[in-house]
């Protein structure tokens, strides 16, 4: 097994944790963190899988992942602003359908 594949498998593992967290948690910040794990896992798969078996490192996936990280940061920032505003307005950190009968 080449060392690149370790990254790919690590990415798959991270994605799994991310999906699990996304489904299991209703707290909005935890969901956001789960999304970030999912994103990092995908980037690892993108870099890891495409490097294997081609001899020298492939620069294209690295460029792609850099762009992807920037996009993920922007999405996280927007989500944080919305979550903060939501918490300030309603004093809740979960969406109405996850709050249960109150």
């Amino acid at each position, binding site marked *: 097994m080449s060392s690149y594949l370790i990254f790919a498998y690590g990415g798959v593992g991270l*994605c799994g944790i991310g999906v699990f967290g*996304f489904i299991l948690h209703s707290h*909005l910040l935890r*969901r956001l963190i789960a*999304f970030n794990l*999912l*994103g990092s896992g*995908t980037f690892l*798969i*993108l870099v890891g*899988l*495409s490097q*294997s078996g*081609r001899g020298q490192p*492939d620069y*294209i*996936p690295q*460029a*792609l992942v850099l*762009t*992807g990280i920037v*996009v993920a940061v*922007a*999405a996280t920032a*927007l*989500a944080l602003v*919305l*979550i903060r*505003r*939501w918490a300030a*307005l*309603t004093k809740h950190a979960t*969406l*109405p359908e996850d709050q249960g009968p109150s």
Partner: protein
Amino acid sequence: MAHFPIAGLIVFPLLGALVSLALSKRWRTVMSFILITALLLNNVSLLFQFYGQGTFNEAMGNWSAPLGIELRVDGLALIFSLMSALVASVCALYACVYLSATQLKLFWPFFWFLWAALNSIWLSSDLFNLYVGLELLSLAAVGLVALSRDATSLAAALRYLFAALLGSIGYLLGVALLYATYGTLSLPELSQHFSLTLSSAVALGFMCIGLLMKTAVFPMHSWLPPAHGGALTPVSALLSALVIKASFYIVLRLWTELSLEIASASAGMLMGILGSAAILWGGWMALNQTHLKLVIAYSTLAQVGYFMLIFPLLSPVDAHASHLAFQGGVLMLLAHALAKAGMFLAAGNLLFCSGQKDLKSLAGLSRYRPLNIFAFGLAGVSIMGLPPSGGFNGKWLLIQSAMLQSQWVWVAVIIMGSLLSAAYIFRVFSYTYREVEGGDSFKQPAAVLEWTALSLSVLSILLGLASMLVLDLLPISAVVAQ
């Protein structure tokens, strides 16, 4: 004759987004309308260039693929770019009268990011650029939903954001697997090497699920009605008319360029079943809503189902029937964009008159605002699919294609869906014809608001008369050549 470069379609809106952040309220609007004019001219110039030389490419900044970004203008991209230019500029005109000064100030940057993302999706032929476009589109759309700033729309925006992010990650995961298998991300190159293996099927599965989630295809639709129904009116129009089309456009591109109808017939069938479920469920839910904008939002859900019927009708054996299905689907997409935007704008005016959201408050409005009801009705004609509208021609082509292939199920679904849409549109009408007891006190919307709504609705009818002009732009080779 000198032409605008293709890149203008992306550079102008990005410029609008960045510069408008630095300007004061009034100058944002002034600059935006200058840029809208430039973009309309740019689109027309591209149209002439396309008539002159057919499909053409441009490498941005002379950096060629794979590191550079290559833009491609073909018939399909051109049609969608013209469609978004038309709808977006009318919505912008509506927004600058409808929105309050504070809302408008925040509206412009998001609007421009939205338009930039849309154009970059129409023009990209590279899977990763499509991903960046999709993400930019989602972020701008979520921002627009949150613009009304109350708790309900904020919850809708958050739900939308999480659905959109999950969708994008699914798509990106598929892109990563495809790159690992084929070592390329450009669609034309991919289509040469593509074959359906286990890894490419898994990759395409991830991509399709992600994209369908963003298009709100049944059963991944629950985020759409609160987001589209709860947003400010011009935003609802933009979201329903344009934003959901972008992710669907990518599915359509993938399907036709990789010739998936040859690779797997059952996948097309599955898409058709999802589409049929969406048509029936969306129509039924629209019939049971008490808020006007939710009726229209659920109607969008049903209309997305019709687009999905393209896939089972693309046939590897019958080139003529495939072409009819493709044309019909594209026509449905266009007609829906124009009619749904017109309908949302007209509905926004009606709600503005009564000041309330529910259908009961519409009583008496047909006498008070006949022009507006007329705009709503014309859009309704296209949504229901009555002749001579664009919606009718689209459905007719789809039905013809289904009959040629003896796939009667889809014919039945299309007809049932049309009956359902007639029911929910006439239901809205029946409320407007009720008489109110005691006096009514309606506010009067500005004339611009009514005329912009009417113009889009009229365009959706005119599309029915000028369908061939539009469809002639489509390459026959897109489906048939193989």
